[in-house]
């Protein structure tokens, strides 16, 4: 399966993060995923486990937030008291939220049980909460619509099969699963073009999305050497190597910079570059689409 890439520019229209004045966005149910998984039979001796903790930083000036026009949906507008701002890069005191952090290499030989608990993405005020989340293959992903307005949820993966359903009534819930690892799968609402979310599917429970403080926590890893990747919808990816030792907590930090806004390549099921009409005989990574 080929992988398409998008540049940071290409992600502009997709990286919708709603920041309510004083609100919290980002951190999902993923942080305690390892704990859930541990309830089932883990493929290693948990007593030998170590931990990875870390922080994702941002250097420079993030792009200014964009105000969204939600006047077409008064209920959503009211939800935010009219304060609807989209931050493509959510930074607080140099800490970067909405980064998907996961173990990219080092766990290939182990098979982890599928968590019984569903990961929930809610639609509140015409925004996805959380904006970034992760599931394991086969784990239930629940899409909830807490809005009194109609949303559709359109997932367009490259590896997994897609889905696109409608939730016309408040409090509807719809469950889906993905079968294969894939980082990341974009979700969108076609009715409200600003609504975007990202789901990472990884074959183990060691994944997390950074909270507003930019922190993440991958606990109870088997001892060993790992490659950790940090993925951001606008800034692309970074990798760090880390060694986990029994009973120890390894620290890992990532730093994204303002300069990456222009150059970053974000692995994703990306739209084909519409400008690049003729050079697709070979699967060249497109140069991105500007909007």
């Amino acid at each position, binding site marked *: 399966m080929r992988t398409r890439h998008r540049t940071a520019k290409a992600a502009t229209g997709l990286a919708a993060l709603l920041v309510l004045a004083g609100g919290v966005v980002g951190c999902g149910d993923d942080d305690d995923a390892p704990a859930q998984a541990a309830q089932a039979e883990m493929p290693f001796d948990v007593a030998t486990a170590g931990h990875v903790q870390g922080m994702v930083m941002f250097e420079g000036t993030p792009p200014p937030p964009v105000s969204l026009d939600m006047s077409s949906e008064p209920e959503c507008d009211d939800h935010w008291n009219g304060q609807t701002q989209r931050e493509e890069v959510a930074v607080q005191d140099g800490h970067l939220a909405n980064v998907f952090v996961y173990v990219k290499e080092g766990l290939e030989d182990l098979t982890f049980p599928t968590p019984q608990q569903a990961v929930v993405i809610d639609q509140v005020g015409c925004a996805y909460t959380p904006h970034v989340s992760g599931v394991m293959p086969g784990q239930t992903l629940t899409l909830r619509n807490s809005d009194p307005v109609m949303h559709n949820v359109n997932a367009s993966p490259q590896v997994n099969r897609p889905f696109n359903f409608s939730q016309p009534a408040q409090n509807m819930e719809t469950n889906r699963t993905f079968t294969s690892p894939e980082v990341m799968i974009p979700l969108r609402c076609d009715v409200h073009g600003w609504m975007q979310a990202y789901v990472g599917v990884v074959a183990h429970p060691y994944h997390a999305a950074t909270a507003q403080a930019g922190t993440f926590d991958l606990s109870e890893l088997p001892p060993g050497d790992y490659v950790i990747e940090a993925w951001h919808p606008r800034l692309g990816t970074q990798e760090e190597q880390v060694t986990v030792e029994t009973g120890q907590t390894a620290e890992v930090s990532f730093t994204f910079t303002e300069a990456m806004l222009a150059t970053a390549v974000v692995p994703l*099921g990306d739209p084909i570059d519409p400008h690049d009409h003729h050079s697709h005989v070979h699967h060249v990574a497109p140069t991105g689409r500007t909007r």
Partner: protein
Amino acid sequence: MAAVSNPVPRSLGRVLGLVAFGVLVLALRPPPAAGQTTQLDRGREVYDRWCASCHGFEGDGLGPAAAWMLPRPRDFTRGLYQIRTTAGGAIPTDDDIMRVINEGMPGTTMPGWEGQLGRGDREAVLAYLKSFYPPFETLAAPEPLDFGRTPRASPERIEEGREFYQSIECWQCHGDEGRGDGPSAPELEDDWGYPIRALDLTENWRFNGGETVEDIYRRLRTGLDGTPMPAFQDLVDAGFMTDDQLWNLAHFVRSLAPEQRPRVREVIRADRREPGELPASVDAEDWSEVEAFWFPLVGQIIVPPRWFEPAVHGVWVQALHDGQEIAFRISWSDRSQSPDPRWMEWQERFLEVMEPREAGEVEPEARPDQFVLQFPPTIPEGMDRPYFLMGRGGDPVYQWRWRSDQDGAEPANAHGIDDIRPLDGRIEADARWEEGRWRLLLRRSLEPTGTGDRLHFETGVSIPIAFFAWDGDHGEDGARGAISSWYYVHLLEEPPPSVYVSPLVAFVLTGGLGLFVISRAQRRERRPSEAGEGHELAGSADTDDRPRTTDGTDASMGPEADLGRP
């Protein structure tokens, strides 16, 4: 007879023998694995020849011609197929893919291949298409859904369907009256990031999965993978609506389009009204009684800059005259009253992805909608007509040009698509945009109204007419627009009452003649000696009456026959 037909069975026998030999050869061929490869080879050969220029040699939808098309040709590498009998997100069955290969996709550039390629070639292409998406081999075999029986349409069902259309907010994209003009429509994009239009539900002959209520129901159940159109199976599963109610929605959607697909007729019939009784406005009630004629429009692809994806695909035209003036009412679907700032984003995205750019980049701009009604400068003798694409130097056409940002319409002579010479004279216009549709009334005296304006609309002859439409928010202007070929408008000579009176006159005359003949015959029976005289009299009565009867019939039927209506 038998001797003549003998050679046929003999040669038939030879053919059968050859076929038997062929079957034997096929049976003795290498094992199935190699056969599979052979089919893929054949599929590749056919695909590369007929499909790759649009769908790309690697099946990625990026063939050399792709950038001229919207929607883009499908990218087969992601295994997403819109027209399926399987659940949303599932792979299609072979039959699903074969249906699209056979029938094509109306409303897109995809033609049907059933009459073009042999069955073997089509099956080979199908196998080759699937090879672009390897999971076809590993995923569980797709199961077609059970769509049950179609419930009969009824006003109640359609009404309940309308309520669901409202409550599940189909209008968000498709608009209140289904013309694809909903509030979310300008922002829609497909899974590849290309702009995509919400379908105009009033033109069901352009539905890519078919025009019937069954087709519509299936699209509702399964969604159109790769597009913003969701599958509603989940709503049925969740008990939000029943399967029967989903059928009602399908019936409602079907009811938005005409019962019959509009036929293209060559001639618009302009009925004659009493003097001063032409409808004064575009939404006058009178128009509802006037027959509407449909004409297809296509992109202007003759002179650069060519335009392959026009916004307007057809116009409905009505015409009336009153012996002094002629009035046309033209209606067409247009998703916006251009320029509409909400559609600027659409225009930017659309212009960004479309080829060719023969006149350089087309800048997104606030452009008006436009419409042109075109005639020859004078009624031509015989079949001679000026060049339909706005005439040529020295051989112009006469046009009524309307723009949504100006009152009235302007007469002009066009000596070519880029040589428009305004005339003085007066064309009245009344236009209204509502719910994704323009309705435009254009009206002029039958006599020319200015210098250089020479067209006298005569009754009883067929006058050439052609149509052009531009959607400003679609980036259209000048050569970038939708065009038609020449058709005709025929102004009826007789005022309409004759249509109803003449048959009555004919009936009375025929009845009277019958009575006359019978009474003559009865009198003749009573007076056998006058038989010869009686025949003569009956004959003369016949010749006296028949021409009048024929006249009456001609007055009502003649023009209709001239119209060439099927």
